[in-house]
């Protein structure tokens, strides 16, 4: 395995081949990665046949029916002229409408099948179905768009597919896990992978497979929430403070620098301890830690850009300050902030894992990749390699998805890099 991975990177790293050869290999590796993720998710979903809830097959097939309806409607809409006139906005809204109709039609069915939790199950089917439909529409309609951008386009597409696949899995996790991921003593503690527990068990006897399937929820929520909060605070502050300069800029920079100088995890722990445990509180404490990195990047960019000739040209042509900020400075700052964002996703995931580890995140029994990964580091010396490995792969895949998206978007959003 290790030599195979090394081989892949060796092939990637050698620059002896021609550029087209090189990029073809690169594309192949990207394709392999995306296919690997999709296959992994498909396998995990396939294990739903053994779901302890008993409704795994129903949920999975429900989402597949929704996605299938959307796919069919999309194909019909592009072939059948009448459907085009039916919905003026084009084939995509038509396909989505058909999908929603299918979801609504499934409501009574799911209420009949599952008498106790029918509504909850139906909402999961609806959400999962929509995520799957999104993936299909992205493949059908997004591919031609992203294709124009060549490799950055493929990167975005691949990254989004990876992230969406993991979102889909997490969304329906509760219904497809073979064992209750929170329950301890499901099997012998530290059982290596076997037929009954395909990914082994933790030292508390929890089923690793169930925890891997269900463990993404906290990560995704915390990462997405904290990055959005960070972005929405850091970028505007950086823009406004540094464009005008002066006293405001000095004060804001000082505050940001002092946050920056603080060890990130310690600060996050302090804030999380103040706010108490919970997903939102975790997200806020992580956001505070990472605001300065946006601020710094935006500030340095603004300081460069506002001295550039085209900003001066805009002033000379009589442009308003507002227009200069929004049309001249902001678009030139965005690509680098998007890159910071994609790096931040990975950082946020790891910080969230750290918070969970010291008990400030979520209760320890909750399924969370971060927790299993952190805990798994301690037991790996005892030979229990399966505890950190599987959550680790998932974290890497999630971070990879976000990074691919971010890097690709960076190149697409900067017209000059398209050359």
């Amino acid at each position: 395995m290790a030599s195979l991975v090394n081989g892949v990177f060796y092939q990637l790293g050698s620059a002896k081949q021609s550029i087209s050869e090189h990029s073809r290999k690169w594309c192949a590796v990207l394709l392999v990665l995306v296919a690997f993720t999709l296959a992994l998710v498909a396998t995990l979903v396939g294990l739903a046949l053994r779901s302890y809830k008993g409704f795994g097959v129903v949920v999975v097939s429900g989402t597949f029916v929704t996605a299938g309806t959307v796919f069919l409607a999309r194909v019909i809409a592009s072939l059948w002229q009448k459907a085009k006139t039916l919905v003026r906005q084009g084939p995509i809204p038509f396909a989505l409408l058909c999908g929603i109709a299918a979801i609504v039609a499934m409501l009574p069915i799911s209420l009949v099948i599952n008498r106790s939790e029918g509504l909850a199950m139906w909402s999961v089917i609806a959400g999962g179905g929509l995520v799957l439909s999104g993936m299909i529409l992205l493949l059908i309609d997004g591919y031609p768009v992203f294709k124009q951008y060549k490799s950055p386009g493929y990167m975005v597409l691949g990254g989004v597919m990876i992230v969406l696949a993991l979102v889909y899995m997490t969304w329906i996790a509760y219904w497809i896990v073979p064992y209750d991921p929170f329950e301890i003593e499901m099997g012998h503690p530290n059982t290596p992978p076997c037929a009954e527990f395909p990914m082994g068990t933790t030292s508390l006897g929890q089923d690793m497979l169930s925890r891997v399937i269900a463990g993404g929820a906290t990560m995704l929520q915390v990462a997405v929430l904290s990055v959005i909060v960070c972005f929405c605070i850091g970028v505007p502050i950086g823009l406004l403070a540094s464009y005008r300069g002066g006293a405001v800029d000095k004060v804001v920079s000082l505050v940001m620098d002092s946050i920056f100088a603080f060890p990130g995890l310690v600060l996050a722990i302090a804030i999380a301890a103040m706010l108490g445990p919970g997903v939102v509180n975790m997200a806020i404490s992580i956001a505070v830690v990472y605001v300065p990195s946006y601020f710094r990047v935006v500030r340095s960019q603004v300081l460069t850009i506002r001295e550039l000739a085209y900003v001066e040209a805009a002033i000379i042509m009589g442009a308003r300050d507002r227009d200069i900020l929004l049309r001249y400075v902001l678009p030139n700052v965005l690509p680098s902030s998007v890159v910071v964002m994609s790096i931040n996703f990975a950082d946020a995931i790891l910080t969230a894992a750290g918070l969970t580890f010291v008990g400030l995140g979520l209760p320890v029994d909750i399924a969370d990749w971060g927790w299993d990964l952190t805990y798994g580091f301690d037991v790996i010396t005892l030979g229990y390699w399966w505890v950190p490995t599987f959550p680790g792969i998932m974290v890497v895949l999630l971070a990879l998805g976000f990074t691919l998206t971010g890097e690709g978007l960076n190149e697409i959003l900067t017209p000059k890099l398209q050359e």
Partner: protein
Amino acid sequence: MKDILRVEDLIVDYVTRRGVARAVDRVSLTVGENRTLGLAGESGCGKSTLGRAIMRLVPYPGKIVDGRVFLDLDEDIPYENGVLKKGEVEITALDEEALRAVRGKEIAYIFQDPMTSLNPMLRIGDHFVQILQAHNPEMEKDEALERGKEVLESLGILPERIGDYPHQFSGGMRQRVMIGLSLVMRPRLLIADEPTTSLDVIVEAQILEEMAQLKEKFNLTMILITHNLGVLAQTADDIAVMYTGRICEVATTETLFEDPQHPYTQALLESVPDVTKPDKKLSWIPGAPPDLVEPLPGCMFHPRCPKAMDICKKKVPKLVQSNNGGVVACHLYGGA
């Protein structure tokens, strides 16, 4: 002849850590309607600063210390806080909003380096939309794009290319786009700060030719800032020669080249290579311009001047009428 621009005793200082450098020292000049004034002088003589100061855009840490700039308006200009009346307005007394209305609308400016003066994130068309909407917020985007296409076409750029990004254009094309952008508001005065310096000679000739045509077409008055006397000989009606922030000599182009009065102008013209005399050794002006933070008393050119007299070291010469119809600031011709 009507004067479009009148500059009176303009002083611009750069406050540096070492002291105050006077980049523009008591400069007065006028530009007549439809004339092209060339501002010539070596690097650092304050010609660009003067051009900027006319628009009140002196880069930090520069400051307009004294003097007034007047611009003639041929129509009322409404802006957010009122209306600028037709006739002469004092630019140095305008508030920010009024200044914004004048910039781009009445005075346009073209930079030296076209490679960096277009926003790489905006399509060419968006540049036109930006400037047109900045002065006329009600204008529709489509109308602005149409105006942009017309201007591009008159500059020999295919109108379809309005959707392209700046990096898809060559240097000469970009400078044409910049010229188009500055002309789309139909300004009265165009200040071109070394517009062709970063271009090769063939493109330079084309652009200068086009600018001359556009000047006719749009009824423009121009200030052309350059150190290239050849460019001025070709395009300017009048030439003002600057040295260390002061005007040495102003004359019509023909007179200046035929009969230069100021020793600095004479030396400057001597140092232009002449293709008709290949054997002639190129002469240069010995020495270097003085440090502006520690200005010399009297005429600043006296250490390098072959005709320097005692009075030159003591007294700053005033601009006086010279015998060839221009004005000159030199003790050889009086002015004490």
